[in-house]
């Protein structure tokens, strides 16, 4: 069966409800508490099994086949390979400082940072590869033949180039890395192809990039005007009046809220555009993907999550994976067909353990 083209049926559909997910979230929380956090890995696997199983693509559900044990083993490996050595190097760093070798300590810190940069790249790649390898549709899984070590170098030097150009080349590095990551991935016998471009999103990035400068200049001008009008008049040595103090504090607070509010909003317009461009440039066989979330959608999604966590004093955080996944699926689109009789099982090597390194570096999904 190949056709799925009627205009109002979407290729991706989420059929779960938060009410059905609630028992999973709360029993996960209970078990996490009584196992001092050890159950986290099994909780994550159970959440994913639920979310995947309620996600329909064309005519059938997805299935998550990863296990809590895999994620746990991934974490243990990451702990011994990275967390522990980094902890020891950190101790050495402190010790070098205390022993009066600030130069050596600085060198060690830079080396540690560079190593971490490379490893974050490897971890991002491997996390995506792991997730695809554990995602089943029609009995077919995804994966990648690459191990992610080459991607790690690419991530390393592209991030470095972006840093050298005072982050002006960030959209370029983001788009390139997205392409490299997805071009190395496959689903069954089909390869993903991605050709995301940085040019279409550069304008919005520039807006985000230059806004802080504009805001600081505007604030400086405002302060200058206030000073010449005598609002901030204050002879050195004398105690400022309550009115002056309140004015300054209120202005500072307003600036803070405005600065980060506006900056967050503009960052969101960039991110929304980047994600539309990146997902829209990705295809699998004859299947073309798209992502339809507007800036408004992202902002509402983000504010909703924030409100959920604050109103419930943090307990609502257990519903964030659910929210993240449904937001993603709700806006994900696919056009074209899948020819089922030519889609064969993947021959990529399935990784043995979970995304431990990504946990270790605290890097988010996708």
């Amino acid at each position: 069966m190949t056709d799925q083209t009627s205009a109002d049926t979407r290729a991706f559909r989420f059929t779960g409800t938060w009410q059905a997910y609630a028992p999973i979230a709360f029993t996960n929380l209970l078990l996490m508490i009584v196992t001092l956090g050890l159950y986290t890995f099994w909780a994550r696997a159970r959440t994913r099994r639920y979310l995947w199983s309620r996600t329909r693509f064309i005519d059938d559900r997805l299935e998550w086949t990863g296990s809590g044990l895999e994620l746990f083993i991934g974490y243990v490996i990451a702990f011994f390979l990275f967390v522990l050595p980094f902890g020891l190097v950190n101790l050495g760093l402190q010790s070098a400082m205390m022993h009066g070798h600030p130069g050596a300590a600085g060198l060690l810190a830079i080396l540690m940072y560079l190593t971490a940069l490379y490893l974050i790249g490897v971890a991002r790649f491997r996390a995506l590869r792991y997730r695809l390898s554990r995602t089943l549709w029609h009995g077919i899984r995804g994966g990648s033949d690459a191990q992610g070590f080459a991607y790690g170098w690419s991530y390393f030097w592209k991030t470095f180039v972006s840093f050298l150009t005072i982050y002006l080349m960030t959209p370029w590095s983001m788009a390139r890395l997205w392409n490299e990551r997805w071009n190395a991935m496959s689903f069954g016998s089909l390869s993903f192809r991605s050709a995301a471009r940085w040019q279409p999103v550069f304008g919005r990035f520039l807006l985000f990039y230059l806004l802080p400068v504009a805001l600081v200049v505007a604030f400086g001008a405002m302060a200058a005007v206030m000073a010449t009008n005598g609002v901030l008049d204050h002879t050195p040595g004398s105690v400022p009046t309550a009115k002056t103090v309140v004015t300054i504090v209120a202005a500072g607070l307003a600036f803070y809220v405005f600065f980060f509010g506006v900056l967050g909003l503009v960052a969101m317009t960039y991110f929304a555009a980047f994600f539309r461009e990146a997902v829209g440039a990705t295809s699998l066989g004859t299947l073309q993907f798209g992502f339809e979330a507007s800036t408004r959608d992202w902002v509402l999604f983000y504010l909703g999550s924030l409100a959920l966590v604050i109103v419930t004093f943090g307990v609502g955080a257990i519903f964030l994976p659910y929210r993240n996944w449904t937001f993603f699926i709700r806006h994900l689109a696919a056009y074209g067909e899948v020819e089922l009789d030519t889609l064969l099982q993947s021959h990529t090597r399935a990784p043995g353990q979970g995304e431990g390194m990504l946990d270790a570096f605290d890097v988010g999904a996708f």
Partner: protein
Amino acid sequence: MSAPSDVDAGAPAAAAWHYDGRSALRRQVRLIVEGDGFRLDEDGRAGAWQAFAQLTPADGDGNARTFGLQGQPGWRIGFIGPVPAEIAVRLPRARRYGGWVDRFGLWRAAAAFAVLAAVAVALVLQTPALVARMVPASLERRLGEVMVGDFGRKGCVEPVGTAALAKLANRIDPDDPTLEVHVVKLPMVNAVTLPGGRIVIFDGLLQAARSPDEVAGVIGHEIGHVRGRDVMESLLRQLGLSVLLGGMEGHVGGYTNALLATAYSRGAEARADGYAIRLLADARVSPLPTAAFFDRLAKGNASGERMFAYIANHPLSADRAARFRRSAAGDAHYVPAIDTAEWLALRGICAGETDKMEWRF
């Protein structure tokens, strides 16, 4: 679709869909029981025999009527209509929570885990006090060297001040020739005991103190930490807690860790105060200036301190002041810890160039 062959006549059977894990085609099949296993019959062609024991369980939260096959990734079977009882009893039970929890049931497993967790936490909290005392002093000193080097010794060295400090330390604790007290030029009102039993007083405290007796009380308190092996104990407890709570999501683990650790540190602080009170009494130094010192600290942050008492790592300054004041004996003949000239010298211990930083590799 159902074209019964001679082989399965009369055997229990059920309609099912099937993915073979090699291609994405969805097949309509009939599962036909044969002994301890089954065959999948597709359009009259019977497939290979598989044992029921090879089936892997379905997801209890998802479609509970789908099953996999061991050693064949992607192989799936799902029942379409009702499943005959003869087949249903041979299917593996759905998994939900994973491993042990599925086996024991949610509530029993949760209770068992809670008991184990309580025991583990109790062990990690209680054993450092015993273990810290078994760590040889020489080892602790070496550990201190590795961690902080000669941080404390690189402090202020103005000779007359150094002599006054030595005299003050000897006055409070004449029995310990290994005692090391140093002053570093930092503007904080604080004093610390480093691993290895080295005491460091910050210059800010000397400047904030109004008499040598106040400094004597603080040094006595730090000596209490050295004798109690408190630094070693807290290092061990931190290590244990960070391993134990390592699996918790970032902040939750960190906060729990800090909360448990500070509860213990308040106990250690109170004991160190008791030790200081005894040392002061033995040396015939009045505890009242130390009490006044804490009173001044308390005035600085009175309301805030009471509010954060549970998360503070020190007892309340006002309570500590009261305790020192109570310890003063009415008929005792107190002698200042050091004389005025020495006190002035001590406060000037950081005069001169002391905070030169060199780049060394």
